[in-house]
C-alpha cells in the first residue's frame, strides 16, 4: 500500500488536498482535506443581525449571491417577512444569474481544460478538444468570457455589482427597476440565449431542455456541433459515466420556485431540516455532533484522528450528495432520472445536469424579467425583533446552502453555515463513513506512480467544488 498526497488542486475555487491510499492499482481509501480556515462563524456573534448581509457574501467570491440569498432568507424567516412579487422575481433573477454563470465557468474554465492534457493526445477527439479547451489559450475562452461578462451585466443592473452585492434584502430587493431597465434586461438575456444556442448546444434551449430520455439524447447528439456534444464524445470514449459514483443519495433545498426541495434515496422524500446534523469527529474542531441550529465552531488544530477543517454534515445520519445532479434528481428531470436509474451518478451525469440547467433556467429568466412590474413595490419592511431564530435554505450552483441564525438581545448569538461542498467533500463521520467525494474516489483504478492522476482530477472537479465555502 502506498499513500499519495495530491495538491494543490487548482481550478476548484480555493485550496484542496486529497490523500489516497493505493493498493493493487486501486484507491483503497481517500481522505479529503480542506486546508483553509478563516472563522466566519466565530466572527458573526455579537454583530447586528443585518450585518450578516455584508459579511457572509464575502465567504465566497463564486457563490457570493447564494450566500447573500441564504442570509436574506434566514433574516426573512427571523423577521417574519415576505417579499413582494417584484422582490421575489429579482431574487430569482440575480441568484439564477450567478448560478448559471458559475455553471459556465466550471465547464469552460475549471473542468474541460483537463482533457487538453498531453496524456490524451492519442485520442481521436484530442485535436479538437485541445484547440478549444486548453487552459487560458483555448478558443472557447474567446467565446465564453465575453458572453459571461455580458450576461453579468444583469448584476450591474439588478445588484450593483458582482461579487458581493447588498441588493438582496430580507424584504426583497433594494434595487427597483424602471421600465427601460427591464427592456435592457430582456435584451441581455436574449444575447446570452444566443451564445448558449450557438456555442454550447447547437440547438434551441427548449429543444435541449426537452430531451427526456437516453434514446432522445443519443439521437440528438448525432452530428450535433457544440461544446456539449464535444464533451459527450469525450465522456463516452473515456467511460466517464462509470467514474465517480458516490452514494446516489441526493439533497436539494429547492430553487427559484421552479425546482422543489427534497431528498432522493431511490424515491423522493420531503426535506426535513431537523434531520441535519454536523459531525466533527474527523475535523480539527472541538465539540460533538450537533444540529446546526445549536452548532458551534471552535478550532482544535492538534485534534487526534482529524484531517480537515471541514465538518461532516449528515442527513438522517446518511451521506448525501448535492449539486445540479441532485437538484434535477429531486426535481424529477426525466432524462436525469433515467440516466441515474440506468448507470448511477457519475462524472458525466454531474456535468450533463449542469449544462441542462442552462437550457432549462434561461427561458424561465426571460419569463421572470417580463413579469417584473415597475411602480409596484420591490421591498417590504419590518422591525427587527430582539430575539428569535431563522433558517435560510437556498441552492448555489454547486448545491444546497443553509444558514442557521439565532439572535439574542438584538445581536447575533449564533450563526452556522453548511455549504454545498461541506456536504460533498465532508470527511468521515464518527461511524467511519466517508463523505461523498471520498466514496466517489474509493475503488477507482490509479497508477501509483502518477503524481497527479488525471482521472482523480475529473472526479474531484465533477462536483464543481468551492473550497472557500466549504469551511468558511
Amino acid at each position, binding site marked *: 500500500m502506498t499513500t499519495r498526497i495530491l*495538491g494543490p488542486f487548482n481550478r476548484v475555487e480555493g485550496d*484542496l488536498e486529497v490523500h489516497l491510499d493505493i493498493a493493487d492499482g486501486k484507491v483503497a481509501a481517500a481522505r479529503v482535506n480542506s486546508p483553509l480556515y478563516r472563522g466566519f462563524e466565530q466572527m458573526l456573534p*455579537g454583530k447586528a443581525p443585518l450585518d450578516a448581509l455584508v459579511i457572509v457574501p464575502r465567504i465566497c467570491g463564486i457563490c457570493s449571491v447564494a450566500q447573500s440569498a441564504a442570509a436574506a432568507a434566514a433574516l426573512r424567516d427571523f423577521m417574519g417577512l415576505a417579499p413582494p412579487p417584484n422582490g421575489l422575481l429579482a431574487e430569482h433573477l440575480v441568484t439564477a444569474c450567478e448560478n448559471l454563470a458559475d455553471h459556465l465557468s466550471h465547464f469552460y474554465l475549471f473542468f474541460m481544460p483537463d482533457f487538453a492534457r498531453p496524456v490524451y493526445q492519442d485520442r481521436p477527439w484530442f485535436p479538437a478538444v485541445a484547440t478549444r479547451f486548453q487552459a487560458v489559450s483555448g478558443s472557447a475562452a474567446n467565446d465564453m468570457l465575453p458572453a459571461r461578462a455580458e450576461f453579468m451585466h444583469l448584476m450591474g443592473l439588478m445588484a450593483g455589482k458582482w461579487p458581493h452585492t447588498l441588493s438582496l434584502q430580507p424584504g426583497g430587493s433594494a434595487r427597483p427597476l424602471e421600465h427601460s431597465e427591464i427592456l435592457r434586461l430582456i435584451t441581455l438575456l436574449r444575447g446570452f440565449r444566443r451564445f448558449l444556442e450557438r456555442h454550447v448546444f447547437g440547438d434551441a434551449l427548449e429543444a435541449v431542455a426537452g430531451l427526456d430520455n437516453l434514446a432522445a439524447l443519443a439521437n440528438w447528439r448525432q452530428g450535433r456541433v457544440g461544446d456539449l456534444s464535444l464533451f459527450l464524445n469525450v465522456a463516452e470514449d473515456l467511460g466517464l459515466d462509470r467514474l465517480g459514483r458516490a452514494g446516489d443519495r441526493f439533497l436539494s433545498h429547492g430553487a427559484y420556485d421552479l425546482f422543489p426541495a427534497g431528498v432522493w434515496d431511490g424515491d423522493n422524500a420531503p426535506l426535513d431540516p431537523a434531520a441535519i446534523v454536523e459531525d466533527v469527529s474527523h475535523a480539527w474542531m472541538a465539540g460533538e455532533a450537533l444540529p446546526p441550529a445549536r452548532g458551534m465552531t471552535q478550532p482544535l488544530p492538534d485534534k487526534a484522528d482529524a484531517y480537515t477543517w471541514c465538518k461532516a454534515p449528515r442527513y438522517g445520519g446518511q451521506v448525501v450528495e448535492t449539486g445540479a445532479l441532485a437538484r434535477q434528481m429531486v426535481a424529477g428531470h426525466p432524462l436525469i432520472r433515467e440516466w441515474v436509474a440506468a448507470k448511477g451518478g457519475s462524472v458525466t451525469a454531474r456535468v450533463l445536469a449542469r449544462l441542462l440547467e442552462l437550457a432549462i433556467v434561461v427561458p424561465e429568466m426571460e419569463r421572470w424579467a417580463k413579469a417584473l412590474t415597475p411602480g409596484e413595490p420591490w421591498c417590504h419592511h419590518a422591525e427587527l425583533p430582539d430575539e428569535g431564530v431563522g433558517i435560510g435554505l437556498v441552492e448555489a450552483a454547486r448545491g444546497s446552502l443553509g444558514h442557521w441564525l439565532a439572535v439574542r438581545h438584538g445581536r447575533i448569538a449564533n450563526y452556522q453555515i453548511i455549504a454545498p461542498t461541506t456536504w460533498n467533500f465532508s470527511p468521515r463521520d464518527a461511524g467511519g463513513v466517508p463523505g461523498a467525494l471520498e466514496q466517489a474516489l474509493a475503488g477507482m483504478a490509479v497508477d501509483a506512480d502518477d503524481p497527479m492522476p488525471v482521472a482523480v482530477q475529473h472526479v474531484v472537479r465533477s462536483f464543481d467544488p468551492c473550497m472557500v465555502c466549504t469551511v468558511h
Partner: protein
Amino acid sequence: MPPEPLNLLWLQSGGCGGCTLSLLNAEHPHLFTHLEDAGIRLLWHPSLSQASGSEALDILAACAEGRERLDILCVEGSVMTGPHGTGRFHMLSGTGRPMMSWVLDLAVRARHVLAVGSCAAFGGITASGGNPGGAMGLQFDGEHPGGLLGAGFRAGGGLPVINVAGCPTHPGWVLDTLLALALERFSGTDLDPLQRPRFYADHLVHHGCPRNEFYEFKASAEKASDQGCMMENMGCKGTQAHADCNTRLWNGSGSCLRGGYACVSCTEPRFEEPGHPFAETPKVAGIPIGLPTDMPKAWFVALAALSKSATPKRVRENAVADHAVVTPAVKKTGLK
C-alpha cells in the same frame, strides 16, 4: 522582436477568490486577451491554469529558488498567521508548509508585489469579528504599516507592496495596474499614503453618484429600495471612500449606490469593523459623524440645514419612494 513577456504568479490564501472572479468580468478585451496584449504571461494561477499538484509546485519552487524569473507576484486573500503565529490555518496543499512561508519566500524574489483586494492589502473581511484566523495584509495590519512583510519591504523593482484594495477589486483596477507596470509607467508617486494606485484611489465613490440631486438637498432614503441619498440614514460612506466606482462602473452599468445600497468603504483599511451596524449612519445630535472628505463640519451643518429647507417637493417625495412619484416639470416656455 517583441520583448520577453512578464511572468506573473498568482497565489490565493485567506480570502474568498472574489477578486479573481471579478477579474473574469473584464471586457473589451476579455481577461486573457488583456494579459496577452499587456505582454504578461500567467506562470500559474490557482483558478485558471492547467498545471495541478506537482506541476504547480514545480513552478512555485522554481520561482522561490530563483530558477524562474518572477516579475509580478499577485497575492489574493489575507495572510493567515493563526493559530498563534503558526500559519496552520492555511497550509498550502501538497506541501505541508504554511502559505505565509511560501508568500515570504516568493515576495523577496519578485520584481513587483501586488496585494489584490482589501484582504491581501489590510486583512479585510477575514480580520473581522476579533480576527479568529490571525488574518493580516502583506504590508499592513489594518491601518498599521507592517503586516507579513514589514513596513520596510521593497520588491526588487523598488516599490513597496501595491495595495489594489477593494472588496472585491474592480477588474480595471487590477488590469490597469498590471498594464502600467508592464509599460514601466508606474512609480512610487503613483501610490497614495495607503499604497493604493492613485489612478482610482484619488477619486471618491461619491463622484458620479446618480443620487447626487438627493445629496445636494439632503433628501434622504429611510429604508432599502428608497431612491434618496443614503448618507444620512443608511450608512453610506461614498463621500469619504476612495475609489472611482461611480465613474468606472461595475458589470456594465453598476455600483453599490446604483444597486440600491450603501457604500461600505471597502477600499479602506478596517472597513470590516466600522464600529456601527453597516446599514446605519452613526450620528451625534442628529448629525452624521462621518462628514464628506475635505468638508469642514460647520460648513456641512450650515449647508445641510439650508438645502433641507430648500428641497423641492419632487426631490423630497421621490427620496422616500422606490420610483419617481413626482416627475420633473415640463416647462411651457422652453429651456433658457
